[in-house]
């Protein structure tokens, strides 16, 4: 499974980000969310969801081999990570996050809470083989 964004369904409410922060950190604090929602206003007047589709660029470029694929998601090995930040730079979606509460970069662990919480069907979990559709 992996996450897929259906941008045209997004209304920018940010429910996904708050659910992410609560599920992963037990914090009512969207600044801790591991996905972004971008409102493009006044023009063109729409939303773009930036989330991790587990593409593996972070892992491929990690000089310490500290990001491993486990149970369907790339996970940061806190012991091996040196915090060099290369993964943040290479992430094509801007969803490797540097947060003051953590000394290693943080990323989506594919818990699926954003998809469960989204009231718009704008973030969905799709099977790997269907992920290229649309």
């Amino acid at each position: 499974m992996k996450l897929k964004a259906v941008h045209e369904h997004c209304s920018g409410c940010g429910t996904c980000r708050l659910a992410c922060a609560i599920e992963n950190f037990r914090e009512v604090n969207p600044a801790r969310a591991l996905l972004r929602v971008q409102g493009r206003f006044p023009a063109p007047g729409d939303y773009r969801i930036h989330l991790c589709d587990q593409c593996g660029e972070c892992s491929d470029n990690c000089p310490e081999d500290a990001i491993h694929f486990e149970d369907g998601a790339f996970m940061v090995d806190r012991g091996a990570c040196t915090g060099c930040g290369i993964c943040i730079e290479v992430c094509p979606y801007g969803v490797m996050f540097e947060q003051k509460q953590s000394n290693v970069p943080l990323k989506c662990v594919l818990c699926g809470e954003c998809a469960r919480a989204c009231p718009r069907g704008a973030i969905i979990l799709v099977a790997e083989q269907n992920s290229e559709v649309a």
Partner: protein
Amino acid sequence: MLAGYAGTILRIDLSSGILHKEPLYETLTENFVGGRGFVAKILYDEMPPGIEPEAPENIFIVATGPLTGHFLPASGKTHFGTKSPATGGYADSNLGGHFGPALKYAGYDVLVLKGKANEPGYIFIEDDTVEIRPAAKYWSKGAITAEKMLKEDLGDEFQILTIGPAGEKQVRFACISHDFGRQAGRTGVGLVLGSKNIKAIAVKGTGSLPVFDIEKAYAKGMAAYQKVMAKPGFKGWTPQGTAGLTNWANEVGVFPTRNFQTSYAEHHQDINGKAILDRLKITDKGCFCCPTPCGKYGHTKTPRGEAYVEGPEYETIALFGGNCVLRTIEEVAYANYLCDELGLDTISAGVVIAWAIECYQRGILTKDDIGREIDFSDLDTVIYLLNKIADRQGIGDILAEGVKTASERIGRGSDHFAIHVKGLEWSGYECRNAPSMMLAYMTADVGAHHNRAWVLGHDLAGSWTSVHDLIVSGGEAEKQPKGVVTDKCAAYVIESQNVRPVFDALGTCRLQMMELGFEVENYAELFYFITGMKKSWQDLLEISERIWQLTRAFSVREIPGFDRRYDFPPPRLYKDPIQNGPSQGYFLSEQDIHNLLTWYYTARGWDQNGIPTKETLIRAGLPEVAEDFEARGFF
């Protein structure tokens, strides 16, 4: 620390630049909850009596509620309070979007501004950092343009409030804008920011809110989304939002047209919710954590220009498409855009412009007075007058005072059709066939605004008690019976007036309850899991009544000679029958108006001048106000 709240009141004296952060205190949260409750209490206690709304001594409050920013449907409300530029009495106005949650994540439940900055500035808040920064480059820019510039300068993660040129130029119906299309539109709150030389407030918050029981709060919040989305009205309400009311309002004859001379628009199919979906809409645009986004963001093209714009919402459709008779949704949306950019409330602007057009048609205003010919159904008229108003040029300088003051200055009987109560222009519902709704407008604490109580369902069909039922029923094509003038009207109004402040105090949107029927008990439970404070819905209603009594007391204190005349509608609405449409011929008599007020005052515990009695103030938990009133000789 108080769970649910951020825990701090931020005070800024703009004259001296001195900042002060003080802990939120428990007597305030216990007795007034938040949002509108905080606004009412702080205004009454801290506003020096008798000062002008535009004076530096006026205070400007931004207040969130305990549920603002938490995980539940539509928890994004922010309230603004001040002495009203529209009425001289109590004012609040609120908006959705994302500002209030961001303010709380930065650590502040409430922001209180007083004084006046020496030069144009904006308030910068990033967690603990609070600064007043120069705003010369943003000053005189449109509200949307200024927001875009600030986002580019500060970063997209900042949530921003702006005023437009109308706020800078002290127009009495200047609004506050946010999120490229959300406004705190009513009561002229934008004037007060402008009078303080404040162009914008930008906030970024990265902190966490404390929660009493996060596991239960999160589970309850998640269940609340499911319940809201399972309501029968969910799929009916969301696609068109408030614009979905347009057809119904015409079918039952409550759609104000031609400055409330008529109550039906022949062209309503060209300015309704479906027209927005077919011809304008790009995306749904939701407020913080909202599953039912009213906002329809789109693009409009007219022969006079094109624009990206959020809306139009029902009210803008009613006041520009109905009251000013703009013929297409594209024209209504363009007027909407101009108001947004200039920083004008679309409701008041639509009333003021329609009044000016009627004055011109009756020869009360001339081409020389105005600078050109003006007419209904003419986008050029609307564009011309909006720009004149925002710039306070020529006739615009008088119109910028609002319809009450403008009619007093122009005279010649024009007050007969100046459609307002207490100085706030009437929003988008005709009421000569609807006595309960008429009473709701008359007694609304901020002036003639529908959001204090919406009781048309009681007037137009006894069994209809929610907008959802009305939408599902589709209205009636045949003539509705006129609503019955009875003492029950007062009970309907008071019930609605007591329910709504609870949502405004909690910091959530009321639409999930009002439009979809999401049960009120859910809010009491969420309130407990988030704050740890045990209050039943009935307890919250008692606080709500306290807020209502307090805002009334503020207006009694601030408006010299306050009596029942201030609760009267304009003469047109009780002397002239409706001229066309499904409610043709209907009107309420002056005696009906007096009867409605008498029943209402009695039920509220007010004397027959509409002033709360000592016993009422004490019963409502406001002994300090009773003492103040005694000292001022109000009893």
